[in-house]
């Protein structure tokens, strides 16, 4: 019985990784059918491209690790993790405080130098 291309669409998808999926009649059809041969080639190209995706990693936007740890903590699973998160917050707040202090110090120096610059002509 003659095999039709449309009967093979799913079998060709399977045969991309398992040639045994083609029985003798299907194999004979594919050997004489340019359309099915082209489909097989395309399936193999897609498969190679899919496998190559395994070597990629997508970088998530920052904060995912903290989100994960917070989620676990909120689930009540991990009390000890609170100290880790607290440590992160302390470091963050400490960094903010240091930056604020540095900015305030720099501002004070600028103001002081401006006021001294204003006073100098009077002193002369």
């Amino acid at each position: 019985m003659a095999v039709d291309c449309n009967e093979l669409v799913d079998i060709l998808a399977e045969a991309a990784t398992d040639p045994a999926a083609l029985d003798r009649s299907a194999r004979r059809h594919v050997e004489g059918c340019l359309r099915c041969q082209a489909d097989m080639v395309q399936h193999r190209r897609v498969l190679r491209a899919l496998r190559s995706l395994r070597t990629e990693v997508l970088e998530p936007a920052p904060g995912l690790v903290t989100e994960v740890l917070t989620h676990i903590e909120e689930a009540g699973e991990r009390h000890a993790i609170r100290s880790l998160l607290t440590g992160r917050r302390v470091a963050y707040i400490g960094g903010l405080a240091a930056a604020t202090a540095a900015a305030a110090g720099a501002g004070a120096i600028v103001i002081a130098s401006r006021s001294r610059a204003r006073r100098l002509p009077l002193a002369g």
Partner: protein
Amino acid sequence: MVTDAGTSSRPPRSYRRPDPEAMADLVARAQAGDDRAFEDLVTATHAETYTLARRLTGNDDDARDVVQEAYLRAYRSLGRFRGEARFTTWLYRITANCASTYVGRRRRHRHDELDDELVVVDASPELDPAARADASDLRDRLVAALDELPPKLRAVVVLRDVYDLPHEAIAAELGISESAAKVRLHRARRKLKDRVFPTRDEDDHPGGG
């Protein structure tokens, strides 16, 4: 240009697998109750887990939710991990299960876009078949095609053809039979092929028949 991971994540970078010995050491310490070791495990694997979740869900926000849930389940069941498989493979299975649950729950709330038989309408110009055919890079077309697949089909093809999980594991994590997993895989491959290589006229292939 097709973007791979949505607007909230950065472009793909080359992948460097975590050192298995270091991972095994971290797992052992985490199993012994060392929370810092578990945090290090999360740090070492989160991008890879996110990548799988992103490929399974098709968008950044859902992927982040799936990652959070996957690590919670991993934390709860870490004591049952016996090391027969790599830790990352074990984590993939958990992530796949979480993604399946998440997508199923989402489908109950949103009846659009998630049905297997749903016809996807290409509303934006970059998804037009002609424009897609002009895309220069097979990989980009493939990633776009993956995102357009119904989630049920996408899950199977990603887990089998990208992450090389066996049919048995895929079926177990998705809650379906192995034969159903295979049927979905072949349908997914066919849909991907048809989208990556847009339909040709019968006349172009006189040998068909």
